[in-house]
């Protein structure tokens, strides 16, 4: 009897734990994405917008720390703060006052910098319509199983975001770009975070599925900056991103925190503005979406027992013969400033010019013909 009860207890326990394992395994594959990308954009220029660059770099730092490699991050910084001549500590960008945390780091790779950060380049990166010679590091090579994180910061208003003080991107353009991405199957799920004044207006017009958006302030509100540093002389971070960075510092690659925790970052008491979010287009429940689904890149490893045959290496067979033939020719270094050669060098005339006096002769001919036909009495009107 006791053995039976023990056996039955053991059986139920085993079945319960196996259900647990299956649940865990199920959750492991529930998000449906196989790779992660991040597009981080700072759109402001000039030294007093130091905080926007610091915002973007702190998100870059968190995203790199949680596992997304540089090849999957497109970082766009509209101005250079680290090596700016006004920076009292070159090659650093700080996010906390008293210079505690250098978010610039030692191995940063900026893909678009300075004047390259334009609305056109940003939309081309998103939609993938880039000229053929664009290098890989400047492309967003996502597919339909990619989760993409897009972070924008800068100066904005109701329905637009300002790029480098000279052009704007509107919320309609952004929504259309995301729709193009959806049509071309360039993302599985997309998280859009924006830290500007009236940021919620930028996600009002989205209409593609699987988009989740967060903004630092509602329409009619301004996002405020956090704290200045007296040595550097400018504000170092914006409030929303400062508390977002604080929140992300506690996340590690195997963390189970979900999106609902992210929505709680920076309440009105800390941020002064009201952060907003939009999840109606997101097909899953936000509570089931992990933070690391977007900010981290947990790589899924598949173990296989098959053997793979490597292809034959390329044999350099003929090289010996070719070398022997060529050995007759002796090379030498070129004279760097061959003065006599240069003086006697005739520059090549590429453009053909008519011979001298041709134009003069042509005009004389025209005048002669004119006076012949119409008579000499017109001469006094000309001269």
């Amino acid at each position, binding site marked *: 009897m006791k053995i039976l009860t023990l056996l039955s207890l053991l059986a139920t326990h085993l079945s319960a734990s196996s259900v647990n394992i299956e649940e865990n395994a199920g959750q492991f594959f529930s998000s449906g994405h196989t790779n992660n990308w991040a597009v981080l954009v700072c759109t402001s220029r000039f030294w007093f917008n130091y905080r926007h660059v610091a915002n973007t770099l702190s998100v870059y730092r968190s995203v790199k720390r949680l596992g997304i490699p540089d090849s999957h991050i497109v970082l766009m910084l509209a101005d250079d703060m*680290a090596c700016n001549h006004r920076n009292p500590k070159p090659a650093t960008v700080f996010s906390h006052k008293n210079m505690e945390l250098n978010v610039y780091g030692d191995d940063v790779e900026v893909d678009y910098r300075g004047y390259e950060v334009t609305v056109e380049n940003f939309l081309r990166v998103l939609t993938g319509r880039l000229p053929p010679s664009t290098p890989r590091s400047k492309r967003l090579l996502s597919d339909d199983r990619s989760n993409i994180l897009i972070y924008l910061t800068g100066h904005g208003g109701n329905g637009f975001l300002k790029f480098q003080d000279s052009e704007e991107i509107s919320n309609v353009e952004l929504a259309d770009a995301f729709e193009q991405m959806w049509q071309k199957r360039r993302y599985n799920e997309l998280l859009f975070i924006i830290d500007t004044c009236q940021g919620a207006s930028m996600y009002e017009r989205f209409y593609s599925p699987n988009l989740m958006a967060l903004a630092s302030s509602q329409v009619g509100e301004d996002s405020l900056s956090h704290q200045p540093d007296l040595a550097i002389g400018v504000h170092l971070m914006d409030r929303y991103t400062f508390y977002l960075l604080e929140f992300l510092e506690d996340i590690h690659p195997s963390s189970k925190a979900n999106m609902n925790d992210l929505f709680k970052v920076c309440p009105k008491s800390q941020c002064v503005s009201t952060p907003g979010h939009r999840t109606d287009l997101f097909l899953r429940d936000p509570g089931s979406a992990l933070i690391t689904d977007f900010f981290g890149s947990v790589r899924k490893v598949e173990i296989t027992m098959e053997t793979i045959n490597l292809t034959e290496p390329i044999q350099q067979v003929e090289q010996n013969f070719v070398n022997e033939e060529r050995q007759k020719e002796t090379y030498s270094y070129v004279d760097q400033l061959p*003065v006599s050669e240069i003086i006697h060098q005739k520059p090549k005339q590429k453009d053909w010019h008519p011979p001298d006096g041709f134009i003069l002769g042509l005009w004389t001919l025209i005048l002669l013909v004119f006076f012949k036909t119409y008579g000499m009495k017109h001469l006094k009107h000309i001269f």
Partner: protein
Amino acid sequence: PAPKPNQPTSFEATADKEDTSAPETVVQSSVPQPKDDFQEELVIRPLHSGDIYASFQFRTLWETDFMRGNKVSHYRLFPKSLGQVISKFSVRELHISFTQGYWRTMQWGQPFLPSPPGAELWVWFQDSVTDVDGTWKELTNVLSGIFCASLNFIDSTNTVQPSASFKPLGIGNVTDHRFLRYATLPREIVCTENLTPWKKLLPCGSKAGLAVLLKSEKLFHSSFHSQAVHIRPVCQDWQCKTTSWELRQTLNVVFDLHTPGQGKLEWSLFKMFSRTLTEACPLASSSKIYIDITDDPQGEQFEVSPATHLLSQAMVLGDRRTFSVYDLTQQITFGTVRSLNLLIRWKSSEDMLRPLLHAERYVAGYGLQTGEIHTLMYNNHPYRSFPVLLLDSVPWYLRLYIHTLTVTSKGKDNKPSYIHYQPSKDRVRPHLLEMLVQLPPNSVTEVTVQFERALLKWTEYTPDPNHGFYVGSSVISSLVPSIVAMDTNSTREQPLFSSFFPCKEESSYFMRVYTEPLLVNLPTPDFSMPYNVICLTCTVVAVGYGSLYNLLTRSFQIEEPSPGLAKRIANIIRKMRGVPPL
């Protein structure tokens, strides 16, 4: 420890065994892998102004052939990204440099490897390339991805094709200048994101050897920082019948004098780079540090610790200089503490040998309409004159008036023996001016040309147009007479810093000097005007047209006010009675 490059590796041996199924019959052999060799060195030279000049050079030599249809697939010390660039774009020579700051020749002397502020790229293509301009455009895009720089802004408006300057620095028999392209971006910023991919090209990365010292926080907190990559074919041996590819990565940095005043100055590796050395790069065949002690052979003014007995002399920049050498491949250099922190204590002396060639450039004039560019070239040699080749590339929006070009030395006209001028085309190509001028001894030669500023279209202005527009540095190439006889034997084992420019004659050496870039203000429009115009026009149209339309199409009707409640009830009763309403 990496396998020695001379022996065929086990990979090769197994490939030979399993080759029975290959379509082409393989002549069995232990075909040796192409030999590659890596050397690194650091030269430290205290300057007379109290600053200290450190120059890193990393050289990889590889006996392989990227051309003639060979597909190179096994890369060892040579970085794969650059090897693929060379073979894909049929590059014969590539020189790219990123510089922050301007080299002050009068205070610091001559650099080992000169470079202009910003980014500079010049490339010689192979003569098999049919469309050089298209290949150039693709190459700049690819390099912008490799070095994280905005080199994609190099296009036809800032590319020139010099006709006499920038002859190839590697070996080669044909020099048709159709295959040369030269471009500068004076506005390019250099920061950690350019240093990171540069360090990744080194065989040991930044983990071992001299590259451990390259920390960005110290390197960019300096007066001058320049990093460059030079790729060229060189002679393999003294017979020079075969070529090998040489990749040189150089980094020059000048650190500021922090403590002013008299007395002894003290510099150490830790103070300069915030790191000390613990080992040489295991893949390097030679790893050395040279400290220039020429100014103090007796040891009175200098004090270098830890002391070393290795001395070497080298002919560099026309002068014979003495160096103390630290060999990092010897374990004894690191001593018992297993780390090397060189300490230099010295007294700065007042007199410095005046550099023989020096150049300056500035913009004269007033207003936003016209101006004048003045280039001054100083020849400080007491009795020898030498020729210089001046290359000027001016953007199209400064319209040069070449008929106002004057070259004067010592107040008299100095006619150049060669002038090549290519005029600019608006929005297509820049001005190119090349002149061969003989500089008389102990004189200043002034080249002036007047220009007029063009008005750009409003979309062509940068987002910060009030900063100004940059004009790239002028390049002055010359054969300067040397103080001691130069060594023309190119095969003797020489330190890297003295073997960059090939030396053909004993009495002079080749040198390049770059002037300052110019910052020119163009007339800037008010960018809010389109917005103002649209608002005003729309207001005028709405108010004017709207009122007119209303006046013309509005019709007036008389309407009775609605009657009160009592009247309405009375009207209802009257209607029921059949009587007309009130």
